C-alpha cells in the first residue's frame, strides 16, 4: 500500500482566543488533486499554510513524504527544528498565494530563477533555460522581461505558478489562487492549474471555484469552524453531500 504524500494527524492551531483548527486529520495521496472548501474562518487556509509551515501548529503532527515537519522526536519530547531545517523542508512544496506576491523589483524571469539560482545554488544557464520553458508552459513566453506591474492579474498569477514549479516541488499548494482576479482572468489561471493536474502533480487547492473542483479535483474536503465536516469524491461531496452543513454551504454559494 502506498503511503500518503501528506499525513496530517490531530493538528490543532489557535490564534489567541480563536481556535482555527481543532484536531484535524487528513491524508493527501500522491498525484491527487484535493480541494478544500468552506466559509471564511473555517480553517482551510490555516490548514494549507500549516503544510508548508508558514503557520506553526500548536499540537499534532504533519508528515510530508514520511518526514515529520517542523519538529523532531527526541527522548519522548518534540524539539523544534532550526529555521534552516524548516526552510529546507519547505523546498519540497510550492505555494501559490491569493495575492500572487511576485517580487516587484524583479522581472517575471527573475522571479522564477530566484529560487533555483539563489536557494538551490544551481547553474544559472540551466536555471534560465528551465525558467523560459516554464513561462512557455504557462503561456507567457513573451513576458520574460516584463515586471509584475506590467502584467495583468491573471498573468502575474501564472508567473507565480511558474515560480513555484521552478523549485521542482513534490506538492503544490494553492491558497485561493483566483479570488483576487477579475472574472475574465480567472479562466486562464484555472487552465494552467488543470494542465498541471493532468501532468500528475499532487495539488491541494483552497478555492471557491466549485466548477474547477467538480472538473479537476479527485477529492473535496469541506471544513467548518476548524474541523473537517465532510470529505469524499468531488462528485459526491459537491453533487450529493451527506452532511446538512455541507448542503447549507453549497446552497448559499451556488
Amino acid at each position, binding site marked *: 500500500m502506498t503511503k500518503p504524500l501528506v499525513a496530517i494527524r490531530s493538528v490543532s492551531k489557535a490564534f489567541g482566543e480563536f481556535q482555527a483548527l481543532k484536531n484535524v486529520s487528513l491524508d493527501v495521496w500522491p498525484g491527487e488533486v484535493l480541494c478544500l472548501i468552506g466559509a471564511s474562518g473555517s480553517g482551510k487556509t490555516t490548514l494549507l499554510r500549516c503544510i*508548508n509551515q*508558514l503557520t506553526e501548529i500548536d499540537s499534532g503532527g504533519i508528515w510530508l513524504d514520511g518526514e515529520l515537519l517542523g519538529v523532531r522526536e527526541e527522548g519522548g519530547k518534540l524539539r523544534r527544528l532550526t*529555521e*534552516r531545517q524548516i*526552510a*529546507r523542508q*519547505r*523546498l519540497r*512544496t*510550492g*505555494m501559490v*498565494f491569493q*495575492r*500572487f*506576491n*511576485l*517580487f*516587484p*523589483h524583479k522581472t517575471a524571469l527573475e522571479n522564477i530563477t*530566484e*529560487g533555483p539560482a*539563489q*536557494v*538551490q545554488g544551481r547553474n544559472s544557464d540551466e536555471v534560465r533555460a528551465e525558467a523560459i520553458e516554464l513561462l512557455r508552459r504557462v503561456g507567457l513566453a513573451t513576458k520574460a522581461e516584463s*515586471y*509584475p*506591474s506590467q*502584467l*495583468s*492579474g491573471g498573468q*502575474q498569477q501564472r508567473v*507565480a505558478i511558474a*515560480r*513555484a514549479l*521552478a*523549485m521542482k516541488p513534490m506538492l503544490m499548494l494553492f491558497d485561493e489562487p483566483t479570488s*483576487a482576479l477579475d472574472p475574465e482572468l480567472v479562466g486562464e489561471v484555472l487552465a494552467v492549474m488543470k494542465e498541471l493536474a493532468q501532468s500528475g502533480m499532487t495539488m491541494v487547492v483552497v478555492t471557491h471555484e466549485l466548477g474547477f473542483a467538480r472538473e479537476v479535483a479527485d477529492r473535496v474536503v469541506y471544513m467548518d469552524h476548524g474541523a473537517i465536516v465532510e470529505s469524499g469524491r468531488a462528485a459526491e461531496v459537491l453533487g450529493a453531500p451527506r452532511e446538512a452543513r455541507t448542503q447549507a454551504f453549497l446552497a448559499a454559494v451556488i
Partner: protein
Amino acid sequence: MRAAPTLAEGFPDLSQMQIAREIHWRRWLAAAAIIVVLVAIGRAFAAGQIEWSYVSRFLTAKVILQGIVNTMVMAVLAMALGIVLGVVVAIMRLSPNPVLKSVAAGYTWLFRGTPLILQLLLWFNLALVFPTIGIPGLWTARAVDVMTPFLAALLGLGINQGAYTSEVMRAGMLSVDAGQYEAAQAIGMGRLRALRRIILPQAMRVVIPPLGNEFIGMVKATSLASVIQYPEVLHNAENIYYANSRVIELLIVAGCWYLLVVSILTPLQMLLERRFARGTARINR
C-alpha cells in the same frame, strides 16, 4: 426606443458660461507687505556694522574651502556608517531572537537618548577611560594615537546616526507587504536571505527619501565636531575670527557655505523622492 426623461423646470443650462478668474487682492497685499519687510531687513544688514569686505575676502579663503571639503567628506562617511549600522540594527530589532532584539533596542535607546555633542566629547576623550586599546598579545596602541579628531567625529556622528537610521529602516522594512516575506519563505529562503534579496531592496524605495533628509541634517551636524578639533568649515571660520575678531563676518561666511550645500542637496533629494517613493512596481489588483 425610450425618450430621454423630462427634466424639472427652473434649472438653467450654464454649460456655455465660463468661470471668471479671481483676483486674490488680499494675497497680493500680503506679498507686497512681505517684500517690503524683506527689503527693509536687507537694507538694515547692508547698513549694519558688518564689514562685508571681510565676508567677500574669506568666502573663498583656502582654509574655508578646505573646511567645507572636510565637512562634506565627514557627512558622507558618517552617513554611510550610519546607514550600515541602521540596517544591521533594524534587522536585529526585527529578529525573533530576544537577545538581538534587546541589544538593538538598547543601542537605539543609548545613542538617541544622549546629545550628539556629548557623544562626540566622550569619543574624543576616550583615552581618559582607556589609555591603551587593542587586542592583548596581538596589537596595542595608545588610544590618543588611534582616536584622532577625524575618527572621533566619524564614530560619534556615524554611530549616533545609526540609531536614527535604524528606526527609519525598521519602518521601511515593516512597510514591505508581509506576503513578500511569505513568498520568499515559500521558495525556501531563510530569514536573512529573504531580507537581503527581497525585503531590503523593496524597503530601500521607501527609506531613501527620509534618508536623504537625514543626510541634509548630517551636513549641519558635522559642525558639532568643531569642538573636538575636526577642521570642518565652522571650526576653521572660528579660528579666523579668533585671530581677527571678525565674528559675525566669518559666521556669515560659514553660513553661506552651509546654505549653498543644502540648496544643492534639497532639489536632489526631491528628485530622489520622486524616483523612489511611489510609482515603482506595485502589485496589480
